[in-house]
């Protein structure tokens, strides 16, 4: 069996790969913004509660399940209960569709790496991003033509992803030796640069000053739990596939703690780079920090380039460092999502690695072309919103229910404890059976309620029907279809 032959050479390779998968673009552009929006430093309290009550327990679940069943997500869930196989397919399909646009964002980073050399955005980074770079159409209904530089960047991204996973754990183990420490190093350079800029302390004041009254707001707690779920690479089947490549006598519990803490530590650290530079931007433009703060794509492609232009010296170099950091942060998350699909394809249809890599990378590249069009930005926004909210949360919920009620958490716990550096007690069973499902139900209920109450982004109904519900429907249909396709002998 090919999966069994593919093994991590060292424990550090596995841990680095898991950290690389968890740490991605969201650590830089999502966490600091969410933290600022939800009580500043006080947000750390619900964030840590979420980390220890659901993030780490779910990671132990995924590591333990993958290691115990020695297979991809669909195979692992199939071995738990034949009818639960769809959970595994759902997980890896959500990850697969996310990679289709995630690679496009990385393609933008490639382009911006080049644009940084000449600071092409000039004095108006927003105009450059929307008009000069994306040639953004008036709305999702107007697709427009393909933006060839973005398509070229996308092709380059997929070639990199293909090369990274070409030899399975052997190549991934080598790649992560660079792609995990390098962005941390670049982040450290950006933090030092940010902290030495005038106004940096004012920015940090906004980031860290706690507003404890915000903790009374349930939305703050929901934001903390969402942030934990979305940032730890849970529910994509990646961690299940990675753990299946571990040798038999391997640690589970401590590896989950190391991966989670390293991921959250990176997010916290990234906040210093982001807010110190925002403090500088506010001072340079005579505005308040609250007026210049932003998150997501706006932070990476508008706010940060604006700051780069205002730097007193070596602006181009810091531009290159910033986008190189984003690229190296994103690449291991992207290839881990594809690796989970490849593992599933190899398990189910008996494909060899080379063929599976080529097939899934090519299909994902072709699907991603829609996001390289002039209207692609709008579609990316819609697909991202729906897949994250309606794709990921149900998978995590189903994982908890399958293990908590069909398999029995104590069985998995005693398995995980067998070779771990330290053991987990019965509290883990309670978290998996009651606490995590309850929180996930509340999260799911909240996004469904929001979806009914407001039309996301004010987009037309037919657009949300195709790009939102259509994609979710496609994931469900494919998950059920794959579950019933003929297995390899």
């Amino acid at each position: 069996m090919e999966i069994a032959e593919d093994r991590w050479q060292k424990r550090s390779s596995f841990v680095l790969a898991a950290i690389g998968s968890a740490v991605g673009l969201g650590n830089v552009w999502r966490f600091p913004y969410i933290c600022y929006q939800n009580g500043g430093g006080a947000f750390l309290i619900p964030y840590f509660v979420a980390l220890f009550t659901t993030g780490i327990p779910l990671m132990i679940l995924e590591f333990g399940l993958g290691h115990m069943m020695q297979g991809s997500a669909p195979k692992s869930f199939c071995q738990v209960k034949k009818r639960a196989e769809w959970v595994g397919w759902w997980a890896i399909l959500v990850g697969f569709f996310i990679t289709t646009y995630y690679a496009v964002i990385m393609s933008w980073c490639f382009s911006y790496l080049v644009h940084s050399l000449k600071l092409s955005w000039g004095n108006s980074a927003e105009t450059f991003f929307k008009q000069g770079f994306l040639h953004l159409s008036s709305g999702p209904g107007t697709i427009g033509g393909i933006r060839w530089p973005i398509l070229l960047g996308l092709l380059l991204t997929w070639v990199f992803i293909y090369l990274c996973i070409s030899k399975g754990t052997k190549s991934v183990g080598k790649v992560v030796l660079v792609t995990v420490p390098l962005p941390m190093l670049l982040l450290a350079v950006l933090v030092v640069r940010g902290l030495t800029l005038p106004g940096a302390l004012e920015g940090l004041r906004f980031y860290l000053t706690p507003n404890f009254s915000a903790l009374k707001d349930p939305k703050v707690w929901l934001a903390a739990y969402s942030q934990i779920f979305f940032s730890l690479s849970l529910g994509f089947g990646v961690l299940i596939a990675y753990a299946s490549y571990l040798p038999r006598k391997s640690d589970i519990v401590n590896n989950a703690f190391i991966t989670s803490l390293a991921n959250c530590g990176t997010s916290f650290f990234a906040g210093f780079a982001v807010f110190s530079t925002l403090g500088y931007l506010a001072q340079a433009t005579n505005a308040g920090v609250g007026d210049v703060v932003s998150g997501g794509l706006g932070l990476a492609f508008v706010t940060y380039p604006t700051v780069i232009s205002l730097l007193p010296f070596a602006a181009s170099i810091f531009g290159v460092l910033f986008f190189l950091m984003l690229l190296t942060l994103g690449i291991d998350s992207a290839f881990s999502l594809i690796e989970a699909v490849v593992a599933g394809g190899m398990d189910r249809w008996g494909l060899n690695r080379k063929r599976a890599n080529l097939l899934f990378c090519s299909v994902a590249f072709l699907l991603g072309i829609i996001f390289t069009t002039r209207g692609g930005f709008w579609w990316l926004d819609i697909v991202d919103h729906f897949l994250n909210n309606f794709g990921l949360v149900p998978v995590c919920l189903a994982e908890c229910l399958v293990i908590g009620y069909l398999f029995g958490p104590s069985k998995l716990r005693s398995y995980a404890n067998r070779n771990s550096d330290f053991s987990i007690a019965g509290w883990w069973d309670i978290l998996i059976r009651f606490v995590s499902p309850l929180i996930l139900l509340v999260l799911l209920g909240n996004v469904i309620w929001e979806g009914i109450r407001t039309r996301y982004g004010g987009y037309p109904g037919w657009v949300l029907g195709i790009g939102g519900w259509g994609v979710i429907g496609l994931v469900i249909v494919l998950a059920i279809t794959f579950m019933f396709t003929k297995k390899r002998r």
Partner: protein
Amino acid sequence: MPISAIIMLIFGCLVLYGGLGWCLWLAQRRRGPRQDKESINGVRLKNEE
């Protein structure tokens, strides 16, 4: 910066980096020679043959 911000900074660093350091220390310790019934400081007491 207000004192409350500095306290939250220390709190965050303690939990995240302190916790990570502790976990890495445990992982490192496990790699070293184990002291159990059959060995002291990694030197086996009994000849298995």
